[in-house]
């Protein structure tokens, strides 16, 4: 080699050494100080999210709608969070408490899961949230509405779990809405309630009873049916015996169907007013019972006002899944997902190499700190119990089954918003 070549080599080495000495000091390594620990996600690893929904059984469509709402939110972000791909671990609960617990266990078995999206049914949310909370995970639902999950009468509800939030409105006001309408508008003074024993329906009937009796009426029968029951004769016999003028039965399909059809076939109940809740505001229910549902009342959340954002999302839903959403809960599912994603992005610490560190308690705090979020389902502010949506409920009356849910929703006969 020529002399000049050696000089060039030495100069290069000296330049490299100088560059190394003058380099930016490396940031200190992340140290987790979070009270319940941190999740570390490597540079090439996906952000794992647990999804717990009811994907089998009668409420499968609702669960599916929730998953779709989540996927639409993800799609808006290019299916990436914090520059990482997103892996969804989707588990089915079968809309049972034990299903919720086992699904949550399957999720929490993987320590790499960042958070949980779900559930569909409140009954499985209670057990799932318990498992998730114990594992230090945050969980947010776009469909749960049972008061027992968050707050009752301004206090922590029995099934409240730290880290559990929801964007569907607390239906603590749902039962009272039905009660007010029954007492004030329909003039009913004796009423019967029928639930299926889970915390959702029981929460509604309890809320109904409390408000109805507060109004001056009397709940003369608080009956329960099992989710597997098809013989509704005995419970309707009890309704007849109770001389109730209205039956509030916030049941799911098919128990709600059986009860309605049996009631319509029972002459002694011809004049008894039947009222259910949002679980039966479903085209499949209307199609199944047909004319039997004419005159029946439903209490459900007030649909969000038409907005470009909601219209756009519904359009995306239709475009992607080739069908209209069965309910409005895809909106709250979308909002729940967005709130979760925002919280993840706010709290995650990103290393230069792309690694992520997610303090779990900080994530919870960020979720609870959500305020004034302009969601597609409305303006959302999460309280300390995990409720993010402002409750407002309508009472709907079905006049024409042929109009389906659309016609039903258009026929709101009463609205009650406790915050107003």
């Amino acid at each position: 080699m020529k002399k000049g070549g050696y000089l060039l080599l030495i100069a290069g080495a000296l330049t490299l050494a100088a560059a190394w000495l003058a380099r930016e000091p490396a940031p200190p390594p992340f140290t987790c100080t979070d009270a319940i620990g941190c999740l570390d996600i490597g540079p090439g690893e996906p952000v794992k999210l647990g999804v717990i929904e009811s994907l089998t059984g009668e409420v499968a469509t609702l669960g599916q709608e929730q998953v779709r709402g989540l996927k639409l939110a993800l799609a808006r972000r290019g299916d990436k969070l914090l520059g990482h791909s997103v892996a969804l671990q989707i588990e089915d609960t079968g809309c049972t408490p034990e299903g919720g617990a086992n699904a949550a266990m399957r999720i929490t078995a993987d320590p790499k899961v960042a958070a949980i999206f779900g559930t569909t049914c409140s009954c499985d949310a209670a057990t799932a949230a318990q498992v998730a909370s114990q594992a230090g995970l945050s969980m947010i639902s776009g469909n749960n509405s049972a008061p027992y999950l968050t707050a009752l009468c301004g206090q922590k509800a029995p099934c409240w779990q730290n880290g559990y939030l929801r964007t569907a409105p607390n239906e603590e006001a749902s039962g009272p809405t039905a009660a007010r309408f029954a007492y004030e508008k329909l003039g009913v003074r004796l009423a019967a309630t029928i639930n299926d024993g889970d915390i959702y329906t029981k929460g509604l009937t309890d809320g109904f009873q409390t408000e109805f009796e507060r109004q001056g009426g009397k709940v003369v029968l608080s009956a329960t049916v099992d989710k597997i029951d098809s013989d509704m004769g005995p419970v309707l016999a009890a309704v007849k015996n109770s001389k109730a003028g209205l039956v509030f039965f916030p049941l799911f399909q098919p128990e709600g169907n059986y009860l309605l059809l049996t009631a319509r076939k029972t002459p002694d109940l011809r004049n008894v007013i039947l009222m259910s809740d949002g679980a039966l505001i479903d085209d499949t229910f209307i199609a199944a019972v047909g004319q039997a549902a004419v005159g029946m009342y439903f209490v459900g959340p007030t649909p969000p006002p038409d907005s470009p954002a909601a219209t756009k999302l519904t359009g995306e839903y239709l475009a992607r899944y080739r069908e209209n959403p069965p309910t409005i809960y895809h909106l709250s599912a979308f909002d729940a997902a967005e709130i979760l994603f925002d919280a993840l992005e706010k709290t995650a610490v990103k290393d230069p190499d792309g690694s992520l560190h997610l303090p779990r308690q900080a994530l919870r705090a960020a979720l609870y700190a959500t305020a004034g979020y302009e969601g597609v389902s409305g303006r959302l502010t999460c309280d300390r119990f995990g409720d993010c949506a402002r409750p407002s409920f309508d009472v709907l009356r079905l006049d024409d089954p042929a109009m389906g849910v659309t016609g039903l929703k258009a026929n709101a006969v009463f609205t009650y918003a406790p915050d107003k």
Partner: protein
Amino acid sequence: MKRRHSPRRLWAQLGITAKLGLAFALLVALIFIAALVHYYTLSVVNQAQAEILTSMEIRQRVFEMDDGLEKARRLYHDFIFHYPEIGFDKARELYCQPLLASMDMVISQSEELKDLLGGSNVSEALRKCNVDVNLYLSSAKRFSGIFLELVDLVTALAGPTGLHARQDALMDALGRAAESSENIDLSCRKMDLLAKEYRITRQRPRMQSVFNTVYELHAAVAKSAKLSPGQKARLRDLLDQYAAVGAKILDADVAIRSKVNDFGLQFSTVDPISHDLKMLAATEVETARARIDSAGRLALRGVVATSVFGFVCALGIAWVVNASVTRKITDMTRAAWELRTGNLDARVKTGGSDELAILAESFNAMAERLKDLVENLEGNVRQRTLELAAKNKELDGKNQALEILSMTDRLTGISNRRKIEQALQAELLRAKRYHTPYSVILIDVDMFKRVNDDFGHPAGDAVLVRFAGILTALIRETDMAGRWGGEEFIIVCPESDLAVAAALAERLRGEIADSDFPPTGSLTASFGVAAYRQGDEVHSLIHRADKALYKAKKAGRNTVETQGETGETQGETGLSHT
């Protein structure tokens, strides 16, 4: 011009030590590569063995966990089926405690399995199963917890003091309280029947019918005229208690159903996990075995490759040694041998700059120098030889002339005395040995002093020369004439007796006497002839010839006198001439 550093040139520039060093470095590298291959193979085999052992241990653990779980399920079913027969206390003792112990074992095994999966000797696939084991562990723990809750629920429902028992007791109490009212009693029995039916079917509507019956009974009790107010109050209280217990039974059943459903979900969760784990562990064992096989094949290929490569390297080293050392030394040896045998043109092929190349160049220079030296030496020798040959030839001529001169009389050109003496001695010896006759003739020119005195010495010399010429001309071929001294001549006559010699002498005497000797004119000569006698020596023979000459002189000259063999002077012919 820029010099090219081609590999061949660089190689040529290397010294022998460097070349051998490179060759052996190659060999060491080969050994190192072989060692690496074997080390890698051993590492793979060791790792695979460790994975096999771990996988088998994992599989064993999973089997034990499965056994424990299966045992727990069996005990759970046994408990559910047998507690009505053997009672709760016995059932708890027989089934619950073993079940919990079994689940404790399963949980412990799960935790150990989790540690195993977190170990280093586990494949990535198995390590990923840690999540499943987490789930298995949490399911196992949940199973224990749920089972305890289930046992409590079942106990609360069907235990000795449970809801069923309480319901039965209430029914008994109702029966007793309603004894006075047949209708009420009948309704109570109907209600009891519905309750029993519920216990069989666990259908809530049956219980709802019970509640409806309670409602009807309340109405009946209220209307009954047979019952006292106290009895009515007692019956209403019993009916409310009965309905309340019924509601609790429903709640308990819902809870039990939920627990049983929970079990089903847990089993459906853990069964695939254990199945997958067992399959995966078995697969891992097979994979590890395959890896060992693969490593074995790789090692075999490595051995073959390194052997082939080693052979090639050995050839390379041999080539290096041969090309760098042996061939050069052989070339130099052959050239040295050729040089030794005279081929001064023998040279060694040069090239490179190693030590042997330098030696080869030195050898060639030396050979060139030697050739120059030898070529110069030969020229000189040839020149000297030619010169020597000429000198030798010259010397031989001179020696020959000298020889002639030493044996020839310088004046007359015939044999001188020395030559004659040699001939006399030689013939004497021959005569002695072969007993052949042998005679000598001694001749003296008569009155020669007068010639010298009268005509001068040159004339005398001319006479002598003329005299010698006559002798030489007349003697026989085998005879030898010589100048004996002064004017005396001698003739040696081999194979001739005294008579023959005397005849020769006489013929000579006559010829001489008849010849002209210018410038003196005629001359005569005297002859003494003697023959060899036994015991003669040269001097004795000559002496006798001289005596015969003297006698001839004395007899008047120009005479031939003989000296016989007996020693007596013989008058040969009796002739005496003056």
